[in-house]
Structures are given as C-alpha cells and as structure tokens.
C-alpha cells in the first residue's frame, strides 16, 4: 500500500514515472468514481440543472482535496506551494490512468492554468503561498477576467479601469465569457491603469474575490439554453495593492504569458486532461454511437465519415504531443502552441458537422429515444464555439504566421498613440 503523501512530504528522491503511475492507478481505482465517456462529450451542452451543476462543483472540490491529501495534486507544481514537483511525464502518466474516472475537471482550466500558472510566473512569494496551496486543496476556483464586451480578441484594448486610492485600487468595468463565474471564488483581472500611454503600456493585473459587494455576476444564455457563461459588472471594487500581480502598467508582460498558457492548455503539464479526451468537443467514439443509433453503422458512408473524424482526432492528439515535446526541448517556439489551437478549432468543427451528417433528419427534430443522435442538432448550432473560445482561430492564425513563421506583422492603428485617443466602436453589451 502506498503511503499517503501530503504537501509537506519531504522525499528527496524524485519518484520515477512507473512507480508514480502504479501509485496513481491504485489510488484512482480505490477512491474515484468511474464515469461513462459521454459525461465529458459535447460543446457546452445544456444538459444539467443548476442543482446538478452545483453538486458537480462540490464534488470537484472534494476530489481535488482528496488528490491533495494523496500527494497527487499539482503534479508539476513546485513542492513549496503544495505541488509534487514532478515532471510532465508524470502528468502524462496520470492523464492515462485517470481515463474513465471522475477528475476535478472544473479546476483545470482556467484555475490551474492559466490562473495558477500566471500566479506562479509573476506572483510574489506571499501571493503564491496564499493561493497555490489553496487552489491545490480545492478551496479556490478561479476565473479569467480577461475578455470584455467591447472586444474579445483585442485583449490589450481592455476598458475596465483601475484607479489607485491610497493602498487600494478601485476597479470599474465589465468582463465577459467566464465559464461558471457564478460558482467560482477568485478572478484574475486585467485592467487599465494608465490611459495616457499606448494600450500595451497602461495595463495592470489584479486578483479579486468574485463573491463581494460590487461584483455583479450575470449569467448569459447561450443559443442552446446553456447558462454556464457569465458576464461580470465591477462597480467600485476595492482591491488592495498587495493583490496586484506584476508591475503597475506592466500588465501586458503578464497578459502575454497568460495567453501563452491559455493556448498551451491541452499541452500544459499543469493540467489534467484524460488521454484521448475530446476537450469538450465530440469524439469518434460518440460518432460511432450516433451511427449505431441511426442504424447506419454498417454502411460504407458511415465508416468513411467516422474514419475521417477519427483521423482528425488522432492527428490532433499526436500534434499536441509533438508541439508539447518540441516546446519543452526548445525545438519549437513557445508560440507554436497556436498551431495546436488552430487545429483543434478547425477539426472540432468538422467533427461536429460529421455528427450532424450521421444523425440525418434527427438533427432537425428529435426525441429522447433517439440516443446519441439527439444531441447532433444543438451541437451543430454550437459548432463554432470551439473556434472562438480560448482565443479565436483568426488570432491563432495571426500568431502562427507572425510569431512562428516570422511573416510581417499587421499594421496596428493603435500602437503608438495614447489609449484614450484610440478610436472605439459603440458599446455592444454593457
């Protein structure tokens, strides 16, 4: 029986990958519930009540704590902050062993990365001690207060303002596209602290509790009825200067790294992604069920479509693996993570279209008896979410061409002028 290892375990010898794997396997089988593969499939499906969602959050917190107590939380986080101080190979082993079992999915993105990753990169010692162990123990769920209603891709064009008053900052503005802010604890917030310099030079990053006076969380209803996405309205929210991350007006250095972690997500050694996971999109196994439930499993057309989807899925997996290894070995630029992001978006779109094709007329009108095919219509309506969320594929294409391939940069009309003079469109949501 493996000894229980807490955060303060002081083993000097690094555990080798195979004994770690066996320890993880034994613990997972003894402590975690198995989950059917369908539980993780589908893009933002509207298939849970609020009560079910909150129960899921509570169970995630509990499992995160169990992992922490078992010495399995934060596999690649430093030991001094409650992590295991192990290697990406250990995390990969865990990803393989956890397939088919529950895991604290809501703690992965954006809590462990980008948020905890950014705190590790830029936080003071005190900030790291305060938040990283709390995150690894399941006590803090984080949200990215990054996108704004005025524009999703132009992140550095943030309009949320932070004004210094004594030892505090006072924040006003609005953030959007936070998944599950209504049950989360902390926000990592990019705000404008200087309007008289060009846009990238007047930003600062703050940490703030979400459940407080002045933070108003509204849930946005997506076209399929899902209400997981939120918008926050910040009104005179006071943040102590000790909760600032990085330098005053130095927020873009933080933001650049932040978005790197976001694009890295499925390659990041800081998060758990069960091997073969479709990252919330559809997978070939689901398409087989759609074909089965529509009675066309044996047809050559279905085989060809399923084969196409499976091919894209395999290429995506192997591509992510290659990019991760290449970046780790210094063979590929860190910006190459955008290649994985682009491929994920484009292939997920195609796979969703294939599911819709296989579903036939059930895609137009369905009943509860239509099995896996009954989701195809609404999944198809939500298809583009995989090319939008986490940074659009258009931005990924800019990053690939400019930062990976070194092609000329787009001309920026807002580069060298004070941000207050940059032309802005009319507000859309506010």
């Amino acid at each position, binding site marked *: 029986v493996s000894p229980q290892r807490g955060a303060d375990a002081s083993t000097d010898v690094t555990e080798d990958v195979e004994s770690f794997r066996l320890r993880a396997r034994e613990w997972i089988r003894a402590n975690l519930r198995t989950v059917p593969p369908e539980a993780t499939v589908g893009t933002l499906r509207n298939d849970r009540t609020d009560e079910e969602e909150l129960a899921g959050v509570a169970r995630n917190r509990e499992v995160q704590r169990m992992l922490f107590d078992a010495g399995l939380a934060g596999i690649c986080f430093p030991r001094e902050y409650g992590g295991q101080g192990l290697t990406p190979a250990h995390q990969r082993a865990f990803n393989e062993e956890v397939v088919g079992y529950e895991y604290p999915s809501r703690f992965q993105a954006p809590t462990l990365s980008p948020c905890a990753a950014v705190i590790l990169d830029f936080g003071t010692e005190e900030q790291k001690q305060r938040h990283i162990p709390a995150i690894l123990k399941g006590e803090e769920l984080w949200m990215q207060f990054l996108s704004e209603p005025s524009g999703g891709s132009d992140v550095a064009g943030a309009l949320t303002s932070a004004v210094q008053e004594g030892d505090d900052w006072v924040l006003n503005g609005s953030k959007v596209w936070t998944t599950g802010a209504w049950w989360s604890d902390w926000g990592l917030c990019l705000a404008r602290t200087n309007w008289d310099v060009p846009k990238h030079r007047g930003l600062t990053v703050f940490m703030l509790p979400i459940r407080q006076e002045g933070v108003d969380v509204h849930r946005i209803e997506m076209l399929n009825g899902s209400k997981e996405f939120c918008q926050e309205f910040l009104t005179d929210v006071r943040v102590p200067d000790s909760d600032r991350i990085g330098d005053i007006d130095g927020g873009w250095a933080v933001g650049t790294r932040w978005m790197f972690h976001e694009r890295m997500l499925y390659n990041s050694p800081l998060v758990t992604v069960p091997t073969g996971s479709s990252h919330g999109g559809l997978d070939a196994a689901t398409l*087989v069920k759609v074909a089965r439930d529509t009675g066309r499993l044996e047809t050559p057309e279905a085989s060809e479509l399923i084969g196409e989807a499976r091919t894209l899925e*395999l290429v995506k997996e192997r591509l992510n693996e290659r990019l991760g290894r290449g970046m780790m070995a210094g063979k590929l630029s860190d910006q190459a993570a955008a290649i994985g992001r682009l491929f994920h978006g484009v292939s997920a779109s195609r796979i969703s279209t294939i599911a819709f094709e296989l579903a036939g007329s059930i895609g137009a009108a369905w009943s509860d008896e239509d099995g896996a095919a009954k989701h195809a219509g609404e999944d198809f309506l939500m298809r583009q979410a995989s090319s939008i969320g986490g940074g659009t594929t258009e931005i990924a294409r*800019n990053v690939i061409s400019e930062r990976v391939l070194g092609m000329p940069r787009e001309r920026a009309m807002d580069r060298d002028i004070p941000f207050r003079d940059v032309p802005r469109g009319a507000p859309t949501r506010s």
Partner: protein
Amino acid sequence: MLLTPTADQEVLRATTARFLDDRMSVDVVRSLRDDPTGYPADYWTQGAELGWAALLVSEDNGGGTVSGFAVQDLSLIAHEFGTHAAPGPLVPVNVVARALDASGSAGHLEVLGELLSGSATAAWCYGEAAPHDRLGDIEVSIRGDGSDLVIDGVKRPVEGGADAAYLLVTGRSGAGLSQVLIRSDAPGVTVRRLSSADLTRRFAEITFDQVRVPADAVVETRIDPADQVARQLHLALALHAAESVGAMQRAFDMTQAWAADRYSFGRALASYQAIKHRFADMASWLEGGHAISDAAITAIDADAPETDELVHAAAAFIGDYGTELLQECVQLHGGIGVTFEHDLHLFLRRVTVNRASYGTPAQHRRKVGELNTQRRDTA
C-alpha cells in the same frame, strides 16, 4: 520528421541529405525525365552503401539499424527522398528486403545480399488493375500444381517493376494469401512500362501468364501470410507518409521564401493577412503531417496494437492534406507554379503519386472507420 532524432540517426539523415544534395540536385532530377530507369546505376549502389537497403535487415543477415528503431531510421532517409524528390525504389526494395530477412531461406538470403549491395533491385507486386485496385483487393492467383506453383493475373502499378531483377508477388492461394519471390525474367512474365505523374519514379504493369515456379519460391515468415502482407502495407504507407511530409516541408519552405520576396501593389505577398492565414493553415497541416507520420512509424517499430489505425490515419491525412498543401503552394506562386521550369511540381508530383499508391485517402478513411466501428459498436 522525428523531432528529436538520436545523434546516430542525425548522422544517418545528414549523410543521405549531403549525398542527395550532391547527386540529385533539382536540375539532375529534371534531366532524368526521359531516363528509362529514372536514375543512374551507380547512384543506387552508392545509396546502398549509405544503408538505404540495410536498415530493416537483421545484423545476422548483413543489415542493421543505427538506433534500434529500424523504421524510424529508414523514415529519415524517406524524408530526405521527399525533400529532394529523389529517384530510386526505396519503398519496394525495403519492403522486399524485410520480407526476405524474415523468411531466411538460403535462396532468399542470397537475393537479399544483392539488394543490400544495390547490385539488384526488387519490386513488390501488390496492387491490381481497376476495378480490383481497392485497398486489400487481391485477385492474382498463386495455386499449387504438383510440386510447383502457378501464378496468374495482372499487377499494377508496380513501382520499379520494369527494372527490378526480382518480384515479390502477393496473390490469393485458396482461401488465404500467399507470397512468392520470382525472377522478373521468368517465362510467362510480361512487363509493360506505364506513364507516371512522377518525373523519375517508374511504374510497370506486370502480367503473369501461367508463371510456374518451384515451391521454395514461397516467402514464408513466422506470421500468418495475411498479417505479413498487412505489415508490408504498413511499411510502404508509413514510408510514403514520411516521404510526402519531406516534400510538403520543402514546398512550404520554398513558398514562404517566395511570399517574402515577391512584391505586389508595393508590398510583400507575405504581408497580406489573407495570405498569412493560409500559411498558418498550411503550417498546421504540415506539423500535423509530421506528427501523425512519426506516430505511425514509431508504432510499427514498437509493433504496437494501434499500428493499423495510425498507419491508415497517416495515409488518409497526408494523402489529403499533403496534396492540398502542395496545391495551395502552387496557387500562391501563381502562373509560375504550373510551369515545368519551376521546381514546385517535382514535389507536387511526389505527394500526388504517393497519395494514389497503396489505396486512396477515402479508402484509408474507410479503413480507419471500420476499425472504430468494429471495436466500438459493442461498447
């Protein structure tokens, strides 16, 4: 191509790259357009000295891998064949060499020696004439007649078939498959040269009319003949994948340089966002191609259970996106891209021919689909 080759693998790759730089510049490749064999005889024997035919053969039989991962090693040579659009029967010779190495009979080892030295080449007679040209469709018969075997039927396209001294013929024998190694000048064998989309790679149609061979022509290995044929197919497809990725890489690099140098309306082509985004898409296909090709190759070396799926997925993806990438490169070059004078077509030809050899992308997709529906419909 492997992201992190071992030092020995890198020496192997670089040696072949230098040799091809020296012997097979694009001008030389062009000049071989009407050469019947597609390459000078000493080119192949010198290549054999660099290990082109030896990597998959056991040390006992005169070969050897440099890293312990023989197909990985060979994939680096295939990659360089792609980046140079180099001629030579790399795939058929290695498929046959590996089969003869596994057979190990005295007669077969003698032939293997000739392949290793490059003094002779061999061709694999696998695919058949339409409408029997679908993946896995075998109509050629190899039937027993007394102590002899008799081969009947037509194989095409056979790479290197017109210039090979030996033919490995895959045929149907009763309920199963069987393979025999014969001399290409055996009575009853007729060879007809075919035209090809490739400039230097030569293909033939080979007709077997009551070709009678002794029983020891059978190439028997320790595994079931159908599995042996599947392994040969995996090897051929994976090497084509590695080669096509080499050609994709070369075309991509050429086109990126072109876009930087070419000015329209007072600015470099590379500065237009519409064009940059197409390069980003191509970069994702290219890196995806590298990744899935290496995955297939590594699976073969490991004899991994997912080999069948990975190899056909690699063939499907690289078949589709390899030709798509090359055609995009042509489009971005404009008119010059469809001229003989420009080098781009050398690489377009290579991915085009590979895409249509040993099955088509649609057939490979269907195969991947069948593997998944068979595996999962009971789940």
